[in-house]
């Protein structure tokens, strides 16, 4: 489903980034990088919003010609960015949301692992497998 999944630390450096067409990796890095400004914009706008609108899921950040970029920010200001092929119209907002939830759950597990140092790049195999399964589903 997703073609690229990235986890960005609160200081805005990448903790984890993976994309499926490996030959064009740099393009995805660039896409994720540029999306961070939109994330920042959305968060600062959200501070004033009502309680029920202060959700962790940020929704569609921006569409490009071939891809759609979605964002999610945890309470600890860690950002998740997901790039999805825009030809995949079957993908609903709700499904993206549940994918982010899964990603968040998995990230929490990594964070609670005593052998993981907060702020280090994520090298957990469990996390890796979860991301792979998210990318594999009906590509």
């Amino acid at each position, binding site marked *: 489903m997703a073609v690229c999944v990235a986890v960005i630390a609160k200081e805005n450096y990448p903790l984890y980034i993976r994309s499926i067409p490996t030959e064009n990796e740099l393009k995805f890095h660039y896409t994720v990088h540029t999306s961070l400004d939109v994330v920042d914009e959305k968060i600062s706008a*959200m501070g004033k919003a009502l309680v029920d609108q202060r*959700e*962790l899921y940020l929704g569609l950040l921006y569409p490009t010609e071939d891809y759609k970029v979605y964002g999610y920010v945890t*309470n*600890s200001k860690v950002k998740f960015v997901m790039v999805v092929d825009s030809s995949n119209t079957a993908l609903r907002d709700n499904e993206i949301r549940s994918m982010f939830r899964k990603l968040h759950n998995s990230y929490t597990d990594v964070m609670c692992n*005593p052998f993981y140092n*907060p702020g280090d790049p994520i090298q957990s195999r469990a996390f890796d497998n979860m991301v792979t399964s998210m990318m594999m589903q009906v590509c």
Partner: protein
Amino acid sequence: MADEALFLLLHSELVSCVYKSPEQGEAENGRCITKLESMGFRVGQGLIERFTKDTARFKDELDIMKFICKDFWTTVFKKQIDNLRTNHQGIYVLQDNKFRLLTQMSAAKQYLEHAPKYLAFTCGLIRGGLSNLGIKSIVTAEVSTMPACKFQVMIQKML
């Protein structure tokens, strides 16, 4: 509840384990406190990541402090903070009249000198939790009569 007893036992074992070294004195005491505090810091970081998974985004600093006093404290110590005071300039005082980790000791001045080592872990817990939510702080604890204690949180403003 069983898990509560386990936490209390583990915590008191933790303290005595850290304090096992034969060296005594002021410097060694400081080292032990730092060690307990940094353990608490890491645990706080992990816990807050789990607890805030399903909550809405926090509005401001006070919102975060309220979360620590209510939800966080209830989950860890099975009760809420009794009193939260602030000067609205980055200093918060959290008062717990019956702090869980001190209730096992006699409620007088007898063990007062040993209180700091049973509070260091919790200070770290608060500091770690706040730091993961993006707030740098200094947390100190203060006990005057035994089961009651105060935690002072000083927020470091980022320039």
